[in-house]
Structure formats: C-alpha cells, structure tokens
C-alpha cells in the first residue's frame, strides 16, 4: 500500500493553500508534518484524504486516484483523526469507538463478534476499557483524546492521518498518545501526524516533513532535517538543538 501525491496544488480565492506538493507515504513509518500556523498542513491532509479536490495534480492510493474511490473504500484504507473532537451527543464510549468500524458496515447498535473483539482490543490498547460504558461528555480531555485514538485505530486501516492529536493535552497525555500512534505503526501500517511540538516530533517520528508557505521545503529523518537554520527559516525562532532535544530560546 503506497500513498502518493503528485504535484498537487490547492487554491482558495487568490491564495495558494498548498503548492506543487510531491509526497510518498509508505507503511512502517511514523511521519510528522510540521510547520507554522497557516502553512497548509491541514489542507494537505484533507487533500490526501480526498476530502478536497486538488486544482492540479493527483493523490493516489496504490495507483488509484483517491477522488475516484468511494468514501467507504477510501475510509477502509485511511483512518482520519481530525482536529475537532467535540461530540454532538453524550454518547457512550464503546459506541464512539465502534463508529471507527463504520466503513465495514458496522453500526454501534449491531456489532458482530469479530468487531466486538476488535473494539475490546483497541480499548485495552488505549487504556480506556474501564471507561467503556461512560458517557463521552463526562471524560477528561486526556481520556477523550484516547477514545478518539481508539476509534481511529478500530478501522485497522493501512494509513492513519491525524491532525494535531496532542493539541491541548498535558505533557503526560501527549506522550501517551504519541506512544499509542507509534505502536499503531507496523510494517503494514503507517501514520502521518501534524505536530506543533518539535520535541515530540523529533522524539517519535521516523520522518519529518517541513512545510512553509504552502510548500514542502524539507523531507527526511529528524537527524538530517532538524537544524538551527531550518528552525529559524520555518518557525522564525532561535533554537538550540542537542541531538533530539530542542530548546527554543526566542522568537525571531
């Protein structure tokens, strides 16, 4: 399973949201997409998911144009964890996780034994099995984040795309979520994650994709791409990098 973006650009009114993006994602890698606010990260994710039709270029999954895949077929290949996590109703946790199986025809009201076992497994992996009968609106932010991870994992999709999965979480929960995503990645499964915390990205990601002004300006391992100059160029900060530890000293 390979996801490829070839020369994709997205325009909104007069501005380029993303421009000339070339990208290839393979299973086995945890890739962090980093860049300042407004660089085009979310637009890139949504285009890869097929939710936005690019103005030029094409996104393919194993050679198939994602725009031509039915939503269900696409959802079986890519699980998506968007930024908004609010639930419309005070649903029960295990039902929310069961929604992750939507693309396989499952509904929370009617689970077959294999779905049930799978949902049980992902709830254990995300350490939320003790919450399974709780209402989602009674959970803390960290617990809710794990519930959303579990429902995303429940799809067992070859690709996981997550938009700021650790935003608004305390350091302990940030680490827990990153470890969960790291564990999800296997030789058969890959993940693309938008992160704002460069330390987390450097620590957990196998590969960093740097975005600035709608373009990818660097793509490679943290060792190769994480430099003081790049931090200054992309984030406009003065940083002090010591192996995988980044101390941000000042804004430029």
């Amino acid at each position: 399973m390979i996801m490829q973006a070839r020369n994709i650009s997205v325009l909104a009114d007069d501005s380029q949201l993303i421009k000339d993006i070339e990208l290839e994602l393979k299973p086995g890698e945890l890739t962090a997409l980093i860049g300042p606010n407004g660089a085009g990260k979310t637009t890139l994710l949504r285009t890869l998911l097929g939710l936005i039709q690019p103005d030029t270029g094409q996104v393919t999954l194993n050679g198939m144009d994602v725009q031509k895949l039915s939503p269900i077929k696409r959802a079986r290949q890519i699980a998506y964890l968007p930024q908004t996590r609010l639930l419309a109703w005070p649903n029960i946790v295990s039902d929310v996780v069961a929604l992750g199986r939507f693309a396989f025809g499952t509904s929370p009201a009617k689970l077959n034994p294999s779905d049930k076992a799978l949902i049980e497994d992902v709830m254990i992996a995300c350490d939320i099995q003790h919450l399974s009968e709780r209402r989602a609106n009674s959970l803390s932010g960290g617990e809710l984040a794990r519930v959303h991870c579990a429902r995303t994992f429940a799809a067992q999709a070859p690709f996981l795309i997550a938009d700021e999965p650790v935003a608004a979480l305390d350091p302990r929960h940030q680490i827990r979520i990153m470890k969960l995503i790291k564990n999800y990645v296997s030789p058969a499964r890959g993940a693309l994650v938008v992160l704002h915390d460069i330390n987390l990205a450097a620590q957990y990601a196998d590969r960093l994709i740097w975005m600035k002004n709608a373009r990818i300006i660097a793509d490679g391992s943290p060792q190769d791409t994480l430099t003081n100059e790049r931090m200054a160029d992309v984030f406009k900060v003065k940083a002090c990098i010591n192996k995988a530890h980044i101390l941000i000293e000042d804004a430029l």
Partner: protein
Amino acid sequence: MPSALNPVLVLTAFLSIILACLLGSTPLGLGQVFAGLFGQGSEGDTIVITQIRLPRALAAFFVGAALGISGAALQGLLRNPLAEPGVLGVSAFASLSATFVIYYGLATSNPWLVPLTAIAGALFATTIIALAAIKTRSVVTLILIGVGLSSFAGAAMSLLLNLAPNPFTLADLINWTLGSVANRSLDDLTLAVPFIGLGGLILYLNRRGLSALTLGEEAASGLGVNLKSLRIYIVLGAGLATGAAVSIAGAIGFVGIVAPHVIRPFVRHDPARALIPSALLAGIFLVLADIGVRIAPTQTELKLGVVAAIIGAPAFIFIAMKQYDRGGHV
C-alpha cells in the same frame, strides 16, 4: 433495555389506539369496539368505530410518528436537540402551501394535490435549512432561520385569512392552521400514509450516517459518510413525512422535539437508534393528546395542535435551557 424498548412502545401504541376507540362522547365497551372493528357489532357502533374513532386515532398516530421520526432525523443531521419540523418552519411551509391549494379551491380537482403540495412546501423549507446548515455551525443561526421561515409562512397565511372571501372559507382555513385530526376519513389517510411510510423508510435506511455525524462532519467524512447524499436523503425523508403529516392534520408543533428528547437516554444517545422509538412515542403522544381533546368537557372541541403547543412549547424552553446549561455548542 433498548431491545425491549420497541416492543413495549408498539404494544403501548396498540393499546392507546384501542383506548381511543373506547373513549368519547358515548363510551363504548371493549366488546363493542372489537365487534365494530370486525363488522360484527350494531350498525351505529360500527360507524362510530370505523368511520370516526379509528380513522381519527390512526391519523393522530401516523402524524405523530411522521413528526417524531423527522424530528429525530433532523436532530441527528443538524446535531442539535432543538431541531424539529415545527421549530424550523418546515410544518409552517407545508401548511402554507396546502392552504393555498385549498384556498383556491384546487383541492377538489385532484385528491392528491393537498398532500403533494404540502410535501413540496416541506421540502422547500427543509432544503433551505439544510443549505444554511452547510454554511453555519451555529445552532442559534439555524433556529433563527427557522423562526424566519415560520414567520414568513405565518404572514402569508394571515394574508390568505385576511383575503378570505367568506366566513366559511375563513373557518376552514383557521381549522387547518390550528392543527387537528377531527373528521379524518380512512380515505384521507390512504392519500398521506404512503408518503409518511416512504419518508420514514428513507430516514431509516440512512440512519448509520446520522450515528457517524455524532463525531462532526469532518470526522464523519473520514469514516466514509457521503455527506452530500446523506443531507439530500434526510431532507427528502423528513420533507416527505412532515409534508404528508401536515396534509392530514395541519401544523402540529413540538412533538418532534419532545419524543426524541425522552427517547435518547434509552438508546445511548445514538441518533440512529432513536429514530423508530421516537416515531412510536410521538405517535402515542398524539393519540393520547387527541383522546384528551375529545373527552375534555369544553363547549367547543379543543384543537390538537393547540394542546400540543401548550404542552410542547414549555418543554422546548426547558430543553433549550438545559442545552445551554451543559455548555451546549452554540
């Protein structure tokens, strides 16, 4: 618990319809009712049962069921417990367009005309709401648009009343706007119930998408929901069911809010699982309310729509206040 919910509601619905046949200005015994239903009783009893009480009870049930399932589905689509055909102006537009047809005397030319125009009016308003819902995430804006649609339909209706050529037309139109299931025949039902069934079926077949929408539109698209077609189907289903209901009974408000609100805790707040029980409960509500209307010792008979609003409007306010209490998403 949820597994027992539907059978219990179905049983209650049957009992309430039988009760509606028993009670009235001349109370009948259980034996007389069953004899009448199967054409074995005295001629007088049979007429009272099959021509008056049963059609009326069935009309109340189907109207309630249509409004209940439409309310539950619109709430799922708009992710808002205050969404309902009445509040969103859907019923008002359905009754405006039906009134228009009746007013110009077109209704007698073809019996299908009233249900079809009522459905067209309902679809028009539902489409506007659904289009607005794409543009805005604000619950308040949507409700305000509904208020605007209701006010517009109300004004146009007043204009029709204002211009009514004679007192008889006026009385007819007023009866229609107040909402009632009195004097409905089985023929009236045959014209409308198929549309209610079709609308309900469309909503039921799309219920899984409503569950997924719990997570928001972005996540639901990620799960594989085709948002565009889901919106179209819910609008179509709710428009058909509501329009047909209005063509039977005129505008009856709030039952589409109250029934799903009562049901949700029993179905784990899953919009999909709320559809059928909400329909059944709303049907039971209206059958019972209509019994109340009939046996209330008033000089002129109360209108079902008026009674529903008197009970339903405070419930609406209560649900709205609770919604903001728990920091509801505005």
